[in-house]
Structures are given as structure tokens and as C-alpha cells.
């Protein structure tokens, strides 16, 4: 680590450092300060120390419901979405006709993001009058309204997350593209079969990207907001069955005007996500192989 390298490094870092100091850091520190206040957004914040955190821990049963919903969602949606994304990316990385078309079609649902159209379309599938129940009705079964039942609502949102697996899929595809062909050629010369090549070349070479997708999906899933917002109209219903953490945070901030409490919730979430991310980074040294390490 010579001085010269330091200069070059900070030159490359300069856009981010300027952005961090001028745009990002201030609001982040401000939100931490607000978490120690009672703040209704219109009057000046009142310092109350850790009261918001204490209230969250001991007096708010809906807060625990939101934790439960969010953790269930993270544990279900992240592995399933990644498995789909990786599987389809593998399938689409081969030399098939019409590949561009398939890739685009599989990405299509992800283009919808959190638009209004998604809410209506998802109701069209999982509501009481939706296509699934119409099919069930042909067999004489009167199905429930999946999307608004306390038993199934969360799973329909997990299904929505899986349906929108396009982003990690594209990142996997980009990762597969980066694996040099000559490694496979060399392995072939050594007599390696397809399974061998998959296990000892594709997967290890892809681990940095798998790691990236894993970490980002976890962070994203903990912050999941849009799907529940558009489908339950921002209420986390029915009966709080889809009360995601950030949805509850949003309700506290913008419906109940408790911005101090919402900020405290945000910082606890940062703690949770930070722990999960740190654990991922610690585990990475055992399974992620970087090209620059050899």
C-alpha cells in the first residue's frame, strides 16, 4: 500500500465520497437523530432518548407481527427466487433458437416492478374470481380468495417475488458470460463430463455472483414494500397477515405521523440487515472463490 496507490484510489473513489459526504450521510445521520425524538413531521422534533426503541420492544404487538411476516417472507422468497433465477439462467445460457425471445419473456414480469398493473394482474390470478379458482370450480372446488386470506396471502406475495425473478437471472447470465470458454475447453481435453464441468467450473466461477445475488436479495426482501403496498392498498391486510416491516414503518410515518418512531424502526432494521449481511460476508471466505485470489 504505497502513497501513490492511495492517491489513485481516492481519485477513483471521489464521486462516491462526494456523494456520500454531500448527499447521503446527512440524511442518514438526521434519521438517526430523529429516531431519538418524538417527531410528527410538522412540529419541531422533541428529544425523548430511547423511548421509541423501548416502546417498540415492549408495547407494540403489531411490531412483532411485522417482524414475523418479514422473516417468513425473507426465508421463503430469497432461496426460491434465487433457485429459479439460477436454473432459468442456466437453461437460457445454451445455444437455443429464439433465446433472445425467451430471455425477454422471462424478464417481462420483472419489468412491471411495482406498477398498478401488477396489483390488478395478481388479483386476476389469486383472487376469489381469479383464474386459479375458475379452474378449481371446474372440478367442483370452491377455492378461497388466496390473495386475501390470512392463511395464504403471504404465500401469494412469495409467488409474486418468484415470478419477478428477472433481475438476479440477468445478473447470473452476465456472470456465466464472464467465465472464459478456454477453461471449459481445457477441462474437456482432460475428459471432464458435463456434470463435472458444472460442479468444478461453473459453480465455483459463479460464486462471486451467487454471493452478490444472495446478499442483495436478502437486503431487498427485508425491505420489501411495494408488493404488499400495492396489493393490500398499503394496509398490510387482511388482519395484518402481510404487514411487512417497511409497510408498518411507512404507516407509522405517513399515516400516523410518527416519524420518530418510524426512524427508530428503520435503525432496528438496519441492525437486522447489517447482521445478516455481515454473517454472509463472514461465511463468504469459506465458499466464494474470487479470480483475484489465485
Amino acid at each position, binding site marked *: 500500500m504505497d502513497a501513490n496507490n492511495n492517491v489513485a484510489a481516492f481519485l477513483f473513489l471521489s464521486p462516491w465520497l462526494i456523494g456520500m459526504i454531500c448527499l447521503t450521510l446527512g440524511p442518514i445521520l438526521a434519521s438517526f437523530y430523529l429516531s431519538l425524538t418524538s417527531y*410528527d*413531521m*410538522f*412540529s419541531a422534533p422533541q428529544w425523548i432518548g430511547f423511548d421509541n426503541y423501548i416502546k417498540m420492544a415492549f408495547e407494540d404487538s403489531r411490531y412483532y407481527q411485522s417482524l414475523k411476516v418479514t422473516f417468513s417472507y425473507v426465508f421463503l422468497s430469497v432461496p426460491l427466487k434465487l433457485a429459479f433465477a439460477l436454473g432459468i439462467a442456466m437453461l437460457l445460457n445454451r445455444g437455443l433458437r429464439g433465446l433472445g425471445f425467451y430471455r425477454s419473456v422471462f424478464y417481462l414480469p420483472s419489468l412491471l416492478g411495482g406498477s398498478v398493473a401488477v396489483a*390488478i394482474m395478481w*388479483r386476476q390470478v389469486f*383472487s*376469489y*374470481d381469479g383464474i386459479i379458482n375458475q379452474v378449481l370450480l371446474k372440478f367442483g372446488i*370452491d377455492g*378461497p*380468495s388466496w*390473495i*386475501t*386470506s*390470512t392463511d395464504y396471502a403471504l404465500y401469494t406475495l412469495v409467488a409474486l417475488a418468484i415470478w419477478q425473478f428477472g433481475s438476479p437471472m440477468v445478473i447470473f447470465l452476465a456472470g456465466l458470460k464472464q467465465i472464459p470458454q478456454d477453461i471449459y475447453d481445457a477441462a474437456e481435453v482432460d475428459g471432464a463430463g458435463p456434470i463435472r464441468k458444472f460442479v468444478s467450473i461453473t459453480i465455483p466461477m459463479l460464486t462471486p455472483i451467487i454471493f452478490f445475488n444472495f446478499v442483495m436479495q436478502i437486503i431487498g426482501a427485508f425491505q420489501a414494500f411495494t408488493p404488499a403496498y400495492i396489493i*393490500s*392498498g*398499503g*394496509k398490510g*391486510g*387482511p*388482519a*395484518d397477515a402481510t404487514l411487512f416491516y417497511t409497510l408498518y414503518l411507512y*404507516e407509522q410515518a*405517513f*399515516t*400516523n*405521523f410518527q*416519524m420518530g418512531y418510524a426512524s427508530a424502526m428503520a435503525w432496528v432494521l438496519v441492525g437486522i440487515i447489517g447482521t445478516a449481511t455481515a454473517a454472509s460476508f463472514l461465511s463468504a471466505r469459506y465458499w466464494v472463490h474470487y479470480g483475484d485470489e489465485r
Partner: protein
Amino acid sequence: MSVLMNRRAVLRQGGALIGAAAASSLPLASSFAQEKVRVRFAGYVESQEQLTQTLAALKLYTQKNPNVEIIPEFTSFGAFTDKIATETAGGNSPDMFSVNVDLLAEYARRGVTTPLDAYVPNPINLSDYLQSAVNAAKFDGKQYAIPNDAIGPTIITNASAFEKAGIKIPADMWTWEELAETATALNKALGPRFWGVEDAGGNYIPCDIFLRSRGKSMFTQDHRLGFELEDMEAWYAYWQKLRETRATPPGDVQALAGNDDPSTSGIVAGRAAMNITLTDSFAGFQALSQDNLILHMMPNGFRGGEMKQRHYCYAGNSTTVSGKSPNQKHVIDIIRFMHFDPEGAKTYYVGSGMIPCSKAARDAFAATGSEADRKIIAYLDVLQKEPAAPRYPGVPGMTGMLTRANEGVAFGKLTPKQAAEQFVREVSARLKK
């Protein structure tokens, strides 16, 4: 303070110039034309017709008053409340904006909006306005907003479904018991995937009217709860019984409907005959349905009790003025123009789908308005014959609290008593501050 403001203004202009340089699409004119008074008017879209007419009225005003530039800032209702809150908290609230009754109380209480009593009755003369609407735009005895459109509670009723079931549409003066029986009869006739009435257990206005039938009300004029725990328990128990007798759909089917949105309602999907809502949704419901829908009154009492008109009209949206606006006089003049200038009011109301709050304008509408307008006016006239006490502002997020408790009962997680306790606990916490 004024130094700070000046510095901010300077910064703002500088920023606008940089912005203009950076993104060529920025209208340069608006950055330089500083002679004009700029008034920001924020509102939410209730319907395309309302948006079109509001913009036309504002344009007309600026044509007549070239020294004023009005910047309309409209968006959907859900997005609007977040936007107003963010702008206000950030110190940049629009000069004038739309509010509904519950938001009004919240904003008024915190000094976000300013009382307008100094301008009533001159130049804003509300004497021939629906008094219940005028009252609903008051907080703490002060007039915080000017009501724009008159609405009232109603049951949107699918007349075609009643016909198909061979059931006669009940009279206006009917009881909550009759509502339950009629709904069950509809399920028997058109069953099993058809229910008579959509569950309104999580809906504020019908709950208030139910409470009024018991001689209580949701809120009092001094912003306190106007009922006892057992009244609310009776409300949740009423809907629980309707669920048991299949008069109203089970929890999961009902939970599909949200936010008074016709597109999610059972009446549009063809699995319910009655939906308890407000008159301004009528056109929206009819537009999505192929059946013949009519406006019907909600129950007015209990069997054996006194039958009386328990409903009230109020304003669907009102215009309020930011407490920080430096252009208050201009804002008032714009409101005056939209409400009392013959040309302005005509542009603002005709074809907007809004029913004017003023009696004179309503009478003119009754002769010339669209068919839907006339149906609503006729219905509101019935409500006006013997007006009930007005609606008082509640607290934001109240519909959420009411719905959550009702869903707790519907999904078997709470008894009606527990639901009532939960609701009272949550509302009280909001009223305290």
C-alpha cells in the same frame, strides 16, 4: 428569519438556473418570469372529469389575471398525502391544496393550514352552502377549508340482482335488521357464490350511522369518542351475524375490496347486490358494471326503535390554505373565482362529476346536469329534508383500525368484544395528542 428566507430564495433561483442548464427540457420561461405571483395548487385526482374541469377553471383564472401564475400539482390520492406531508415537513408546502375531512383535522391541529374565518362571508359567502359540509370543514370552531363537493352515505344497489332474485327493493326508512334479512334472502336466491351486501364492518361512515341509530356517534364536536365500548361491540357482532347467515361474504372474499375502490368491489365482480359507500363513487361503480345500479339509503334505525333520517351530507374534498403561504390573498381570490364567479364556478363544476355544495348551483344542476348528477342530487335532497347532526372530523388511519378489528373477527382471531377494545384503544391513542 428573513435573511434565511432570502438566502433560500437565492439558492432556489440559482438551482433553477443550473437545472435549466443541465436538463434542456426545463421551461426556461418559468425560471425568469419573476414579475408574476406564483401560486402552487396541489390536489388529488378524483376523476378525469374533475381534473379536466379544475385545470380549465385555473387556466381561465390566469387568463383573467395575467399577473398570477398557477402551478397545478395533481396526483392520485394515495400518493398525494405522502407528497403533501413530505413537502410540508421539508418547508415547501404548496400555497393551497385539497384535503378530506380527516386529514383536515390532523393538519389544522398542527398549524399546517390556516383558519379562513377572516374571509367568510366576504368574499367567501357560504350561506347557501350545505351547512353539514361547511361544518365538516371546521376544526376547533374555526373554518379551515372551503368545501368543494357535496357527498352523502349511500348503498349502491344492484337493481338487476334484486329483480333476478325476485326480491323487492326495501323502502328508504328501513332497519338494520331488515338489511340483514334482505341480504340473506339474496344469498338464498342467488347463492352460494353470491352475497346480499358487502361487509361494511371496517367502514367508518356506516359505523357512524349505526352508532347514531343507537343515539351515539363516532366522534363529538370537541374531537372525542362519542360512544361506549358496547356500542362498538354491537357493531362488530352485527357483521359477525351477517357473515354467519351468509348475508355478507366470508373474511377472505371481503378483504379483496379496499379503499372504496369500485374495481375491487363484489358488486362489480357480480357477487354482491349492495355496497355501502358514498355518493361520489356512484358514477365509478356504474361505469364498471353492466347492471342497473341505483342509490339507496342506509338503514335508519332498529326494529321497535325510532325511525329517523340519520344521514348527513359533507364534502368529499375541500380546499385549504397553507399556514406558510405568502400568497394568501391570491389563494382566496382563486377560491372565490372557482366557487362564486359565475363563469369560474360553471367551468369548475359543470361536467366535473362533483355535486356543488351551494344550493343555487345544485338547483341549476338538477335541471341541466348529467343523468348520474341528477340522480345524486335527488338523493342528496332526500337526505336534506330532515338533516341529521353533521359529521365531525376523525383521525387519519381510522379506516385501517376499523378494518383490522373487523378482519380480526371475520378471520376468527378476535371476538366482537376484543375487536371493539382493540379499536377503541388504537383510536384513543391517536386522539390523545
